């Protein structure tokens, strides 16, 4: 079936094939939401599992993510309104102000999406106010902050404080971050890598 082909092509990271299969699927009259949920996202789920099991690594994840993006670019404009993309919850993710590292954050996002979460990406160099604004707008259950520099860890503290009022759960991560630092600044959780970040998100949402 064409959706399986999309899924397989995505897992292989074959961008061109994903594009042509997505077009084929659309021509065959399949709903854009089905292409996203049962083709692209379900392919990403497999990527997530294989990455977790260390069967594949960053380069494979990146080409798959790229293929996913290429497919999305075709389908997204055809979505009417807010379609039902099966979601276990919404997470707002961003790298804090002053910090431009985003590979780790993007990997966390890929894994979260692969696990069925809806993720809003604030990109890099995101100030506390930007997170506050995004929480108002998107009403996420969880916010994830990433920082790779000791000098930008202070921004995490600032952001956690700014988000206190909203009651949203905040998790933090990045190479220099420790559990202790997370506790010290009053964050709700810390995870050392993208795989455990997904577990943490589940935990924070009470999904067990």
């Amino acid at each position, binding site marked *: 079936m064409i959706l399986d082909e999309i899924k397989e092509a995505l897992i292989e*990271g074959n961008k061109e094939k994903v594009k042509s299969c997505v077009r084929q699927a659309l021509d065959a009259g399949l709903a854009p939401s089905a292409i996203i949920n049962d083709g692209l996202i379900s392919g990403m789920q497999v990527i997530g599992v294989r990455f977790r099991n*260390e069967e*594949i*690594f*960053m*380069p*494979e994840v*990146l*080409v798959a993510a*790229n293929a996913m993006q290429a497919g999305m670019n075709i389908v997204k404009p055809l979505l009417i309104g807010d379609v039902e993309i099966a979601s276990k919850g919404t997470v707002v993710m961003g790298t804090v102000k*002053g910090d*431009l590292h985003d*590979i*780790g954050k993007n*990997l966390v996002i890929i894994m979260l999406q692969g696990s069925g979460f809806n993720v809003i990406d604030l990109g890099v160099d995101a100030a506390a106010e930007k997170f506050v604004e995004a929480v108002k707008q998107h009403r996420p259950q969880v916010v994830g902050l990433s920082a790779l*520099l*000791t*000098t930008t*860890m202070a921004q995490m503290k600032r952001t956690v404080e700014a988000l206190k009022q909203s009651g949203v759960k905040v998790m933090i991560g990045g*190479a*220099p*971050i*420790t559990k202790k*630092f997370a506790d*010290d600044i009053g964050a709700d959780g810390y995870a050392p*890598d993208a795989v455990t970040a997904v577990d943490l998100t589940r935990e924070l949402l009470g999904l067990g």
Partner: protein
Amino acid sequence: MSMNADAKQQYQASLNRVLDAIKLKEPDRVPLIPVVEAFPYYYAGLTIQEGMYDYHKAGAALDKFYADFHPDLGWDPVLMYPGKIMELLDMKWFQWPGRGIEDPNSMYQYIEKEYMTEDEYDELLLDPTHFIQSKWIPRSFGALDGLKYLALRDSIWFGFFNTFPVFGRKEVQDSLQTLLKFAEEMNKWYTFLGEYDKKMENEFGVPLAYGAWGYAPFDWLGDTMRGTVPILRDIRERPDKLLAAIERFTPIAVEASINGAKASGRPFVWVWLHKGVDQLMSKEQFGKFYWPSLRQYIQELVDAGLTPFIYVEGSYHKRLEFLREVPKGKVVYDFEDIDMFEAKKVLGDVACIAGNVPNALLSYGTPAEVEEYCKKLIDVCAPGGGFMMDTAAMVDDAKPENMQAMFKVTREYGVYRR
């Protein structure tokens, strides 16, 4: 410049300590070689912007650091890159306080982009020099855009009838003028650094840490040409071209480092590793794309009588066996994130190891915690020699009392013999 007998003695003692550690022998005590970046300037109360725009202020700030701390290898103000000179070039892949960054106290930053695109491998492979001159340089430096018109490789026979006239173009002339001005300013900076190096030796008794810098061949391509994510995708999408480019770059990287060390007359070559970390590729990919060319690079440096200080940024838990494959007693591995106990076990008889005192601990911990961490490192890594104390990553915003704790415990607890 005053010549101070104590300084002379300290200088020699420090250097011997480091050389012994490299040779995997026990020195009198564990050498202290912290790579400090912004720390001395913050410590002296100078902003990064001031340091980057006034060499002499940067020098004075560093004076304070060396008056209060005495490392066994030190850095001159080279890491306060000269803001004015970089402005002159209109550098695209860098921003700093004074250009692009508002906060005068923020560190400068590298801006990643694809300065070489995925379809340009063939062009690069055909003629790296031409590619760098006509594509990479103009993209990297706005003020050198005119160099894209030069194609000197086509000058053979009467080809020069066509290739030389472009020197008449205004854009080319502007770029060349900029280069002349750049060279003039750069010489002033180098003169300043040279004077500071003498001061370090003669007044503070601290040997300069570096003779030259280098990069792994994979990083030559990955850092300022392709970028992190694109080069990782290349591993999957165009592995043959990637390997060919790495192979092409290896002798160029070797030559650059050897020439740099020759020019300075100092044998320590610091090699900053970036893209080979555990999280970015599998062990097999590391063994195929990253390590062979780096290994060759290290070997050729050692053959040329140099000492590579491999500054291993990021986590390297899964790379240890590879790192063994270097000449014995000639290489330093300065680690960030690794199990040092494991590193000592695997590498102890081959290479000197250093590093690993977490920067987050230095920024947010207490002196007692720092002391405890360093003691553990000394307990595990010092026996038999081949160990130097360094922080995990370059130090920017550490608490001074934590830096002092690291120095103190190494001086007192890291003693092999009085």
